């Protein structure tokens, strides 16, 4: 794969949220507003970019047996940096993301890319992969956040786009609306895939799980 392909891979072909079904928790939780989705996406992209480079540089030093704890430590370090930066410069975002900011540490996109890509590739390629995947994640979050914010509160990035005289579809901002939007968005993607013949098997079970190689529950998730 050339460099451009590695970068664009994460945008559509292997979009982490809609095609690989990774990072479902933050996708559902923070997308009540487009701005939160953007903030979460940028924070995760930063962590993904830095941890991919660090893990790629260390890939020949880390013994295979302890690689997961080592990856988690590297990722946790960058998450702490992001937490401090967000707390200092965008306190409003810190408040609305809440616990999901420290939880980037267990976001399966980041651990998944460390395991599937950065541990096998050169630093430059890993950096591009991290950026592409992060951008794919961010775009999906902003899209979902936009749908839920426009329909649910009638605003987009805080600007009113639907006149106040029209009732809000507040269901969209509730947790149930999150599941519903995600389900419909995924159905739309599958519909397009069926039309264009780019089918991809989606399972939330063993395939695509970053803990697959170390997990004892062979096929326990079905």
């Amino acid at each position, binding site marked *: 794969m050339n460099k451009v392909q590695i970068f664009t891979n994460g945008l559509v072909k292997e979009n982490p949220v809609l095609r690989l079904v990774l990072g479902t*928790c933050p996708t559902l939780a923070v997308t009540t507003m487009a701005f939160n989705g953007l903030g979460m996406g940028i924070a995760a992209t930063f962590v993904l970019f830095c941890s991919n480079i660090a893990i790629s540089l260390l890939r020949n030093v880390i013994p295979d047996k302890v690689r*997961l704890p080592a990856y*988690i430590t590297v990722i946790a370090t960058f998450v*702490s940096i992001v937490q401090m930066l967000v707390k200092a410069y965008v306190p409003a975002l810190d408040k609305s993301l809440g*616990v999901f900011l*420290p939880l980037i540490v267990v976001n399966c996109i980041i651990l998944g890319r460390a395991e599937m890509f950065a541990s096998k590739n050169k630093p430059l390629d890993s950096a591009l992969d991290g950026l592409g995947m992060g951008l794919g994640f961010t775009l999906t979050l902003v899209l979902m956040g936009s749908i839920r914010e426009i329909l649910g509160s009638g605003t987009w990035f805080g600007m009113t786009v639907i006149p106040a005289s029209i009732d809000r579809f507040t269901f969209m901002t509730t947790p*149930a609306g999150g599941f519903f939007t995600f389900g419909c968005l995924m*159905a739309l993607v599958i519909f397009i895939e069926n039309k264009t013949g780019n089918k991809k098997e989606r399972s939330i079970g063993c395939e695509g799980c970053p803990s697959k190689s170390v997990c*004892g529950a062979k096929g*326990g998730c079905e």
Partner: protein
Amino acid sequence: MAARLAAIFFTMILVDNYVLVKFLGICPFLGVSKKLNSAFGMSCAVIFVMTLATAVTWPIQNFLLTPVDAEGNLKWDLGYLQTIVFILVIAVLVQLVEIIMKKYMPPLHKALGVYLPLITTNCAVLGVTVLNIDNGYNFVESIFCALGAGFGFMLAMVIFSGVRKRLEEAQPPKCFEGLPITLVAASATALSFGGFGGLIENIFGAI
């Protein structure tokens, strides 16, 4: 005191349900909920690990990272280490529990063991330990909060495994087959939990 503990416990189960309202632990919720047996086993393991992790991380936070003296001033502030310390402690703890269980409690290990490695990187476990600190709960309250979160997870898993059994016979439009219709069903399940809002305040009074 008892009323407050009960309020925290039931709030975590019904109102602030970790899976359906707070979106923590969605992966096992969608991944392991197909069969009732595995849903139940996974939930037991989650309850156990959540409570244990809280019992270990609460003292670490309050005696090592951000201890306070008699006047309530911080003795020193290592709060920025919270994320790293918590995730490593949880990972080590899960491994340790698995080793001990395998050696001394083989039947229990057979039932829960397969789910333990999955829990290390489960956001619900890290989430409950961090939220307990953020909410400023004391030790006993934290334990009840963790127990409530665990039982709430179990309730959601068991209910949803029943829903999924019905889904298997359903014939949705082709593009909704598989994961999308599961997510829409989860939406309906989450909607039903919306009905519990205000319940706790009226029974136990405001927390």
